[in-house]
């Protein structure tokens, strides 16, 4: 008899036993008594070790490995091997299957010295992970050797709390949340589509939200434009929006532009924004947004609505492909080379719109923007998602880049802004 079975009541430690003795159900069959030293020796025998030089080589060769940092969160925050995923050993069994669902993925676990990661590797093997190695020694030596390390972004405790549900997602995490906080999204229009998009982007912690809208809040807007309020009828939409968004999330810098997007201000307004969310209500502005997107290399998340129907897609020009690490796609002119003549294109003001419809489409737009900013998932590039709210059907149509497109084609004929009002008035 030994180990924990002898530690039934406090103060009754068995004589001549070290408290580190535990009862260990080893892999060598049956129950046996062992000491920490025996335990770790057994674990080391069963786990495959890699040197830090080898870890560094794989890192530089960009080999597909998951680097799993099993140290505590505060140790991780002080610095980690670039690209490592943080999963403290105390949460290993509980969270690893969520974070690493593929049990055949190649994993190198590391800690400060090599002990906790060896124990973690043994646990992972018991959980069925087939390709686990442990780095020996660990991060302390890695740092001494002057090998590359990264520091996680500095989130405040309040931010860790506010964005905790994001941080739990491996696809976001503290790094992704910090990216969002440093990102800038420009919304064209603070109306039906801009309202839900801006609300969710602000809630998600996108650090800077620009809103371009020259209109004031009208009572007839409130059926769908949920950024605004009855008490603010008559106020500029961007001011009303700013009030709502600041109250929702003070982390977000809201910049209102009380102007219409035009050829002579589009370069300034697009400025250093990362993603443009197009929620405008007219064709001239949509073609202007498109051309500026191609000229300035900005992705545009496009949404449009009419009565009960919506369309949403992401336009990512060649000039923005590198920044976002995804393949470029067609532009708005590839999809619709020309606008309909005005008499065939009634606006929502003339034709009506279901108030909830922009909620669905605007939230899809916000989702696309967040995915682009995080570099996660598959954006709607080259795909048009159509939504029929009456039938409650989403459909997907393939969009192709038009080699003859006057803006993004092989031999573009439109290389500077044109007269968009004139272009859309032909009919």
């Amino acid at each position: 008899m030994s180990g924990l079975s002898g530690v039934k009541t406090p103060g009754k430690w068995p004589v001549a036993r070290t408290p580190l003795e535990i009862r260990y159900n080893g892999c060598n069959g049956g129950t046996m008594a062992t000491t920490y030293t025996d335990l770790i020796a057994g674990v080391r025998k069963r786990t495959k070790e890699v040197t830090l030089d080898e870890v560094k080589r794989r890192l530089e060769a960009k080999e597909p490995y998951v680097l799993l940092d099993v140290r505590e969160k505060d140790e991780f925050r002080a610095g980690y091997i670039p690209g490592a995923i943080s999963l403290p050993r105390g949460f290993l069994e509980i969270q690893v299957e969520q974070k690493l669902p593929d049990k055949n993925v190649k994993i190198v676990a590391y800690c400060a010295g090599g002990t906790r990661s060896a124990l973690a590797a043994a646990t992972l093997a018991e959980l069925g992970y087939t390709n686990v190695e442990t780095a020996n020694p660990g991060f302390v030596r890695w740092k001494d050797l002057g090998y590359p390390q990264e520091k996680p972004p500095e989130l405040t405790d309040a931010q860790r709390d506010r964005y905790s549900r994001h941080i739990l997602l491996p696809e976001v995490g503290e790094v992704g949340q910090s990216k969002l906080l440093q990102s800038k999204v420009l919304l064209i229009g603070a109306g039906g589509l801009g309202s839900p998009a801006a609300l969710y982007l602000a809630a998600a912690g996108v650090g800077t939200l620009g809103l371009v809208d020259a209109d004031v809040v009208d009572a007839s807007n409130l059926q769908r434009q949920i950024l605004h309020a009855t008490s603010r009828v008559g106020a500029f939409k961007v001011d009303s929006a700013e009030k709502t968004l600041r109250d929702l999330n003070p982390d977000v810098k809201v910049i209102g532009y009380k102007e219409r997007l035009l050829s002579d201000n589009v370069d300034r307004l697009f400025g250093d924004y990362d993603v443009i969310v197009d929620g405008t209500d007219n064709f001239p502005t949509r073609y202007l947004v498109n051309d500026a997107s191609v000229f300035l290399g900005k992705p545009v998340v496009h949404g449009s609505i009419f009565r009960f129907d919506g369309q949403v897609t992401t336009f990512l020009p060649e000039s923005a492909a590198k920044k976002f690490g995804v393949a470029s796609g067609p532009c708005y002119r590839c999809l619709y080379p020309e606008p309909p003549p005005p008499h065939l294109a009634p606006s929502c003001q003339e034709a009506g719109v279901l108030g909830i419809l922009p909620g669905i489409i605007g939230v899809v737009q916000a989702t696309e923007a967040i995915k682009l900013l995080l570099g996660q998932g598959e954006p709607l590039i080259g795909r048009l998602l159509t939504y029929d709210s009456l039938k409650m059907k989403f459909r997907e149509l393939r969009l192709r880049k038009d080699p003859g497109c006057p803006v993004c084609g092989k031999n573009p004929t439109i290389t500077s802004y044109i007269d968009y009002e004139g272009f859309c008035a032909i009919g």
Partner: protein
Amino acid sequence: MATKVRIPASLRTLTGGKDEVTAAGDTVGALIEDLEKNHPGIKDRLVDEKGVRRFVNLYVGEEDVRFLDGLGTPLKAGDEISIVPAIAGG
């Protein structure tokens, strides 16, 4: 051969409010001629002398006919046509 055609909200005044109609034709062009017989005025909204209008897209399944054979795109049994016009509301 009857082919299902999805009608967008903006053209439903021409189909008596119906969001889906059927029409016959071996090609997209022939199908539009047949649509016009039952829903006069619809052809003018979809095509002009140069082909499919540039603010409307016609899809056979998921594919835009502009990237197939335009109005000459052949239709086979089971194909579905979607009419997707440019809309600008926001």
